[in-house]
């Protein structure tokens, strides 16, 4: 075999630029890096930092009109930039493979898995016989932990994790020297993420290729790679072994990246000292009450009957934690009245959402607001962003004239750390995801509802901004006395922000109680699995081991871990 110190990829003074109407944008500036055979290198940085651009340039797959404007790319002795279109085609996959971000969209939906693998082989080695093809595709599928019969299935018959495994199989089927994995697990939940990363690491060790892992999650990086390259605005700001970077980061940006990962039990990024009084309420009824609420879609039970009461006398943050498909978002849309429950009633201040009068309904809308997951979709692309703030303010009769509205908007922007002059008159596409999500928080602040439903508010925002936005949301409770239902898959943030946590699994609450008990010391096997699956930026913490879901998980009864005043989950 080849010697360990041999380099598979050397980037020398690599510069990449994109001409735009506003002038040249330097996407990557003077990047120098080499990757040794068998090493795993993580590219970490925010979106727009040039990490994917760098990786794509290695395969000459830059999106037009981007181009390499200087430097060299050497792939195991081949000068990549000197290769023509046809040579490059032969190079791709056989020597450098790319595992894309959205495995969902990377497979041909009308072809079975097997022929897609065969196509990859035949494109590089024409004339391979059918039994050979079959043997090789079976071997590839087995090596990524899929059963052989998966090859006869269509992509839609596989789960997200399985599709991502197929993409890995496709990537390694020709045993390339270098694998580029572009956020391969970003669409997967933590439990599946751990399994897929394990598979990727195993297979990479087996074939001994180099691996570039692109991502923005410091925890995942710490657990998966040997070396880390930190990119910021197209520049390599720090490069070294994982241990060195995690324990002694030199660049302030790297330090920010590490500290922005919330850790269970670690120092809080919030300031929990201040407490605001809940706004005076006219009603003596509890703020929100679920009475045996359940939701069934056809054969699927999204939510099993659930009853709880949120008093709302003292502002509280109630977290609802679970994987995708656990029913947590269904719960959110039921609370907002977007989705009628199959059984049971939802009462807001004693009034049933289903039988509300028009006036009561408008009042309910004013008092129950939401922050959604996707900050890109929340603004109407036709209007300037202030439309989203101005319209509800006027609609709910809070405005006392144009000047008052303007002042309220500006104050709300300042409160979430945005410069109102810079953002308010922009169009949505001119703002970053983080800015937009903060504006949505500012909108909630302006309307000062009694209850805010935050459905995965930070899952689509860059890691470095998550803490800030969560702090903004936390301030809503803290300074403005708004009760919050925080729906998330991220246990670490739930640990810090919430007063009470409910862990949801397949529509059922499996463990509930104060976060210090539920997340700090989980008792239910499912909660334990979730917590063990979080990748921490801590090298001493084992992450690699641990398998799939235990079949016994669902049978285990709900564990109640204590109560919090003001919130009452009916035990049943």
């Amino acid at each position, binding site marked *: 075999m080849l010697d360990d110190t041999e380099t598979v990829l050397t980037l020398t003074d690599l510069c990449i630029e994109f001409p735009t109407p506003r002038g040249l944008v330097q996407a990557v500036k003077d990047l120098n890096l080499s990757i040794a055979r068998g090493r795993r290198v993580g590219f970490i940085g925010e979106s727009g930092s040039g990490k994917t651009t760098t990786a794509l340039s290695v395969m000459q797959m830059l999106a037009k009109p981007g181009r390499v404007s200087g430097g060299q790319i050497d792939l195991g002795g081949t000068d990549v930039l000197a290769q023509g279109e046809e040579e490059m085609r032969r190079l791709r996959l056989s020597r450098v493979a790319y595992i894309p971000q959205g495995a969902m969209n990377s497979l041909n939906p009308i072809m079975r898995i097997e022929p897609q693998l065969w196509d990859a082989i035949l494109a590089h080695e024409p004339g391979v016989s059918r039994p050979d093809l079959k043997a090789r595709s079976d071997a590839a599928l087995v090596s990524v932990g899929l059963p052989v019969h998966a090859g006869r299935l269509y992509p839609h018959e596989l789960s997200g994790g399985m599709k991502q495994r197929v993409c890995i199989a496709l990537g390694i089927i020709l045993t390339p020297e270098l694998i580029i994995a572009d956020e391969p697990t970003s669409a997967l939940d933590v439990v599946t993420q751990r399994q897929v990363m394990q598979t990727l690491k195993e297979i990479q060790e087996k074939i001994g290729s180099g691996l570039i892992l692109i991502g923005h999650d410091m925890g995942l990086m710490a657990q998966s790679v040997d070396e880390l390259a930190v990119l910021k605005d197209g520049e390599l700001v720090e490069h070294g072994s994982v241990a060195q970077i995690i324990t002694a980061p030199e660049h302030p940006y790297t330090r920010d990246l590490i500290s922005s990962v919330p850790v269970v039990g670690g120092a809080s990024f919030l300031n929990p000292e201040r407490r605001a009084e809940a706004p005076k309420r006219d009603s003596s009824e509890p703020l929100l009450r679920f009475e045996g609420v359940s939701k069934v879609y056809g054969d699927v039970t999204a939510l099993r009957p659930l009853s709880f009461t949120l008093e709302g006398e003292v502002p509280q943050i109630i977290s609802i934690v679970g994987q995708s498909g656990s029913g947590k978002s269904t719960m959110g849309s039921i609370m907002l009245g977007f989705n009628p429950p199959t059984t049971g009633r939802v009462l807001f201040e004693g009034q049933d959402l289903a039988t509300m009068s028009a006036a009561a309904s408008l009042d309910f*809308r004013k008092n129950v607001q939401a922050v*959604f997951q996707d900050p890109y*979709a*929340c603004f*109407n*692309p036709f209007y300037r962003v202030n439309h*989203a703030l101005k319209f*509800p303010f006027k609609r*709910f009769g809070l405005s006392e004239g144009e000047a008052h509205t303007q002042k309220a908007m500006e104050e709300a922007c300042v409160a979430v750390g945005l410069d109102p002059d810079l953002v308010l008159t922009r169009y949505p*596409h001119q703002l970053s995801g983080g800015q937009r999500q903060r504006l949505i928080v500012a909108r909630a602040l302006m309307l000062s509802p009694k209850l805010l439903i935050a459905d995965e508010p930070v899952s689509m925002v860059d890691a470095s901004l998550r803490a800030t936005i969560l702090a903004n949301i936390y301030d809503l409770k803290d300074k403005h006395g708004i009760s919050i239902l925080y729906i998330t898959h991220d246990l670490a943030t739930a640990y810090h922000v919430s007063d009470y946590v409910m862990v949801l699994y397949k529509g059922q609450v499996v463990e509930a109680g104060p976060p210090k008990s539920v997340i700090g010391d989980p008792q239910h096997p499912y909660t334990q699995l979730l917590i063990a699956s979080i990748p921490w930026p801590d090298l001493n913490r084992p992450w690699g081991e641990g398998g799939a879901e235990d079949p016994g998980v669902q049978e285990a009864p709900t564990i109640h871990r204590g109560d919090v005043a003001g919130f009452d989950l009916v035990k049943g």
Partner: protein
Amino acid sequence: MAETLQTPTRAEKRQARRLRRFDNPWLNPKLIWGVALLLGILLLGLIGRMLWNLDLVFTGSATLKLPPVGFENLRKQEGVWDFPLGTDGSGRDMLALIIIGAPNSLFVGLLASLIGMSTGIVLGFTAGFVGGRTDDVIRVLSDVMITIPPLLILVVFQASFGDVSLTMMALLIAGFVWQSPTRLIRAQVLSMKQSGYVQMARLSGASTGHIMFREMMPNLVPYLFGSFIANVTTSIVTAVGLEVLGLGPQRIPTLGRTIYEAINAGALIQNLWWWWGIPTLLLAVMFVGLLLINLGLDEVSNPRLRKLS
């Protein structure tokens, strides 16, 4: 170096122009050219009506088959300035024919498309919003209508109606151009209903009317414009098609009817190219204008395309 800073290079000038265009998207060259071409046809109609003697559209008001000025016909007759574009086989002045005919063809197209579009907007929004049975009925109806070749039905209709007016013809054509806007709007409404900003608007207590017309409609504008212009083109093609078959209005000069008469009188064999050529050219100008407007509007209404322009 210092010199290049003072006098902008060509690349820099182009850059500045691009930026101006980005800031004011309506300065789109395609749009301007397209509008100019169509306005040209309208102006031809308007100014022509003021300056030219329109009685010349009547049969026999001039010598037969005169060529345009500067050409000679097969009888060695020279074109004269009294009839600058020549005359047709029954002595009608071509210029007068065009002055009346070209705006007529455009009018039929615009009217048919306007009616079709309005129907499409109403049906599309209804289907997308109400859903259920209503949606099924509208969808099946428009799907069935799309499969029927309009010319076939229209030929039968027109033949049984005998002589029709321009408005009547526009109405008949409108019956065949409402399906695609209906489907398009229905699909857009369905996907927009799920979008984040419509959810936000609902959270903001917006009424259904507000969601339809203030949140969704502006985002439909590019589709509506595109669909409208495409429909104008289709309607004109259909109208001209019927006219060329001799099924259009019998008494009103249109471009299609002129071509029909030219073909009927054997203008192709007799080398009377101006008779059929000039109306064809005008139709081509109309279509190019419409196409340019469509492309231009696309860039205006889509900021992403605009950035690249």
